[in-house]
């Protein structure tokens, strides 16, 4: 088989390339040609289109997200922040925790079970990549109307997917949210959070340093999963009849992920790894370019060494594949055998696919044909950045004018109460949480129905953490600035009431299309609100995720920032559960 090589690209500068179909703008394509000094090869075009997509480059959100680092006072407890796979916060001078919340909305609409399952799998690998042992998960779900004909497919598939993956991975589910609102009908939200714990000495990063070090790909074989999924699935909306263009869906294998976790932890503890990166939505493309860009060196990778599920895969497909349960490790040559031996012990594939080089170029070949030769920073760091136009939604004034005070007062309180209790958003959630394992690992101190999940981290000292997530799309639609602050305040309170001290924030910002100035305004306002709120509370945003293009046709979902607050408890035996403890206790109402 022959591929579109760098040589060929030089010889055929006028070849027409489908950059627009890959989601690249004409000026973005021109910049790629400028960077390379020639037309990109097919593989390079795939890589740039993936890395410069909204999903990977944060091109529309970057200018706003800066506030999270600029507005917050420097925090010496934060060991890793925005830009890393997940933020890491020290609890004391030995132990740190890392947590993050991420979306998997679009894949979950296409295939609810697998979409939700691989959402959990993806966030857990982010936590693992920081050097941490994942210790719990949470899930934040938004569905359409409870009585819509498509809702059962989504609810049951998604809940079973979250449970199926998390339960099989052995991670307790310690909380989450379930909201029904017609605005999510064609675009449910599936956000998943994971938290992990690590000795500070085990903190990992994704830097590919050390010329001559080996590049090891660990985990599942690479298949045609979600080829182009990042650019197609994450940055376009679903239209009727788009079935044919659907790329193959990623299928999760939690068993392989469990083995990947155990083998990576053993490799960390043996001190065998220089850098590590999980393979997420953008597969090898992202892992190869981000690790080599972070190291400031070059990298040579050999695609024919990548274990494939289907032999007929072409180089650009191998680079774009979203196959799950894979990690990329940078390992000193003398440690390669030891790493592969640990892989073998756990029955995980480990393959040496390349090495770190001098010269600052990422060079990728396939059967002796060079298919990629570019500066890795141009993929990972120098993507386009847009300051998109913002405009307050035209209907906002009307919405705000329609005030609650004008509603008729209820005359029958009993009926009001029954309506509330019976509403899908307020009713008991145990039909969901009973499908999740809350006990595994034996450290769950509080979970459903509590306001926050509490996990013991150290059996000797009883050190522990509390986590809560909140978000309210309806408030945020009415006032995105205050809505984001409210989400923060609610999660902060939910953590505080357990007796924990809040110390850090992660967020998942679910919005419509950034190309719509009204949506972009909502986004800008929400980020400003969250940043201001965090400044007031004195806790930093350590990481998060932006999910744009959540809409059906041109109608966006309600802007839905989901905010996660992490708190610390020096002694989890002193936690305060909700509910009244004893008869005779005094009831006090705090606040206004």
């Amino acid at each position, binding site marked *: 088989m022959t591929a579109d090589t760098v040589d060929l690209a030089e010889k055929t500068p006028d070849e027409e390339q489908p950059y627009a179909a890959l989601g690249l703008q004409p000026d973005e394509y021109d910049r790629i040609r400028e960077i390379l000094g020639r037309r990109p090869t097919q593989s390079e075009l795939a890589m740039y289109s993936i890395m410069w997509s909204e999903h990977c480059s944060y091109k529309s959100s970057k200018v706003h997200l800066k506030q999270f680092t600029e507005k917050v006072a420097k925090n010496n407890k934060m060991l890793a922040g925005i830009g890393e796979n997940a933020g890491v916060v020290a609890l004391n001078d030995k132990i740190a925790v890392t947590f993050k919340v991420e979306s998997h909305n679009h894949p979950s609409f296409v295939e609810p079970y697998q979409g939700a399952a691989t959402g959990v799998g993806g966030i857990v690998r982010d936590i693992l990549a920081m050097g941490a042992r994942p210790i719990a998960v949470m899930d934040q779900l938004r569905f359409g109307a409870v009585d819509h004909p498509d809702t059962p497919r989504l609810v049951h598939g998604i809940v*079973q997917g979250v*449970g*199926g993956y998390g*339960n*099989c*991975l*052995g991670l307790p589910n310690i909380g989450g949210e379930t909201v029904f609102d017609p605005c999510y009908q064609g675009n449910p939200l599936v956000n998943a959070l994971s938290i992990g714990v690590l000795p500070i000495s085990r903190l990992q990063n994704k830097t590919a340093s050390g010329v001559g070090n080996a590049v090891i790909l660990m985990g599942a074989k690479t298949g045609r999963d979600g080829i182009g999924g990042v650019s197609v699935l994450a940055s376009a909306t679903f239209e009727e009849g788009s079935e044919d263009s659907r790329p193959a869906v990623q299928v999760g*294998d*939690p*068993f*392989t992920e*469990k*083995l990947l976790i155990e083998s990576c932890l053993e490799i960390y503890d043996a001190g065998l790894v220089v850098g590590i990166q999980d393979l997420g939505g953008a597969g090898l493309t992202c892992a190869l370019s981000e690790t080599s860009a972070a190291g400031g060196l070059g990298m040579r990778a050999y695609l024919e060494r990548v274990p494939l599920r289907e032999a007929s895969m072409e180089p650009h497909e191998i680079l774009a594949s979203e196959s799950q349960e894979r990690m990329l490790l940078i390992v000193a040559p003398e440690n390669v055998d030891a790493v592969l031996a640990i892989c073998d012990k*756990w*029955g995980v594939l480990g393959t040496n696919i390349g090495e770190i080089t001098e010269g600052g170029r990422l060079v990728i070949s396939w059967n002796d044909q060079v298919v990629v030769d570019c500066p890795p920073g141009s993929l990972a760091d120098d993507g386009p950045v847009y300051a998109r136009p913002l405009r307050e939604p035209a209907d906002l004034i009307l919405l705000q004018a329609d005030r609650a005070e004008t509603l008729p007062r209820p005359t029958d309180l009993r009926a009001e109460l029954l309506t509330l209790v019976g509403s899908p958003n307020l009713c008991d959630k*145990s039909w969901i*949480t*009973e*499908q*999740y*394992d*809350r*006990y*595994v*690992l*034996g*450290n*769950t*101190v509080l979970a459903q129905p509590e306001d926050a999940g509490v996990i*013991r981290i150290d*059996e000797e000292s009883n050190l522990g953490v509390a986590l809560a997530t909140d978000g309210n799309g309806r408030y945020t639609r009415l006032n995105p600035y205050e809505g984001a602050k409210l989400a923060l305040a609610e999660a902060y309170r939910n953590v505080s009431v357990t007796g924990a001290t809040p110390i850090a924030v992660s967020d998942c910002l679910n919005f419509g299309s950034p190309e719509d100035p009204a949506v972009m305004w909502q986004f800008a306002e929400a980020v400003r609100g969250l940043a201001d709120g965090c400044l007031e509370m004195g806790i930093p945003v350590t990481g998060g995720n932006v999910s744009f293009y959540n809409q059906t046709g041109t109608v966006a979902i309600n802007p839905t920032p989901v905010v996660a607050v992490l708190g610390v408890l020096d002694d*989890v*035996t002193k936690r305060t559960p909700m509910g009244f403890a004893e008869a005779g206790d005094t009831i006090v109402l705090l606040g206004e």
Partner: protein
Amino acid sequence: MKIGVVTFPGSLDDGDARRAAGLAGAEAVQLWHADADLKGVDAVVLPGGFSYGDYLRCGAIARFSPVMEKIIDAANGGLPVLGICNGFQVLCEAHLLPGALLRNSHLHFRNRDQKLKVENTSTAWTSGYTEGQEIVIPVKNGEGCYQADEHTLDALEAEGRVVMRYLDGNPNGSQRDIAGIRNEAGNVVGLMPHPEHATEALTGPFGGGVDGLVMFTSVLASLGVKA
């Protein structure tokens, strides 16, 4: 006394089982699925989880691991063996216990605090309970529906080999509300609910129950009696 806890690839509650053994006063020993060596342990726990992903059938692949060959021999020779959840499934697949565990009748994974009635205390693992005692232990499984033919079920009942039964609602549709059974000799017990998750007030079922710890203290007592 040493209680060995097997770790198969995909075992999840192995750490909890080791912690429980320790809380009961035993030395917990990790046994690796690929080792055909029981490291001189006095009893074995096959923990919960999804061994080998529980693909094909729960426990089907784990049953063929090297450590299981040794455990089958040792169990036939009287070594106390407790299979919890996935471990119960492995014991059935290995024919150390009769019957099989099928998909829950409601087709969902279910995790809840489960009330149980202790039916039989003449096993190595339940001697510390009193017959008829009601206890609460978490249950969490997707395939915990115990099934056997009528003849086998009648024999189990007649011989007092039903060890625990679900009370106040059967969480998985198991026949005759069976939660756990034992072999004829009483050294091998399989149980769907998870006693290792009810050994500490802080992390146990709602209300702080530690009813599960008795299973681990029972085996130590029965070993002491023998020694």
